[in-house]
């Protein structure tokens, strides 16, 4: 177990409000990722990080920002949530460095009304 936890696990919010999801890992992994999971779209990469303060955009980054001030925490922020951002969000880490083998958190289900 890579010791990865996400919080909150469930959140309901209203359009236009800011939301921050947290991903916390305990094993000092360098590479961390945020994906969203939507029916018919599989998993799509939002943002990723390759170290403290080093982040980059993924496939669907519009409307999202991230921060990584500590190795163990990778935060995903929706500055002004929209209904299209209703989704399940998964954090993941690369096992063994910059590899394609990912270990996922349990997911955060976000509903934007």
């Amino acid at each position, binding site marked *: 177990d890579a010791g990865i936890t996400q919080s909150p696990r469930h959140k309901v919010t209203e359009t236009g409000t800011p939301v921050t999801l947290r991903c916390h890992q305990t094993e000092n992994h360098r*590479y961390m*990722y945020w*994906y969203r999971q939507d029916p*018919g*779209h*599989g*998993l*799509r*990469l939002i943002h*990723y990080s390759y170290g403290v303060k080093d982040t980059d955009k*993924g*496939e669907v980054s519009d409307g999202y920002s991230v921060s990584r001030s500590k190795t163990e925490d990778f935060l995903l922020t929706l500055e002004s949530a929209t209904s299209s951002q209703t989704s399940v969000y*998964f954090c993941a880490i*690369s096992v063994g460095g*910059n*590899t*394609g*083998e*990912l*270990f*996922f*958190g*349990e*997911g955060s289900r976000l509903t934007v009304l």
Partner: protein
Amino acid sequence: AQRVTQPEKLLSVFKGAPVELKCNYSYSGSPELFWYVQYSRQRLQLLLRHISRESIKGFTADLNKGETSFHLKKPFAQEEDSAMYYCALSPNTNAGKSTFGDGTTLTVKP
């Protein structure tokens, strides 16, 4: 651009029957291919990676570079195999930026 296609959204088989979940990819280099599984209300977890060439829970997958496919197979499906399966491609540059297929929901009927 890299792309992964899983042509079947839903697949239903009877217990004991063979099952094959299809995955096709497009990528100009030599990618790593993976299968992930998500059981009901659980996190996604790695099932197979093509490099290891091992069998997990009776599943195998062979990378066919000529056909750009990485189909997942099991000779005798079990009810506990019912889950969502994702095929994923990892590029040989920046390996963690994986591209996932849309997923196939497998239902194994008793």
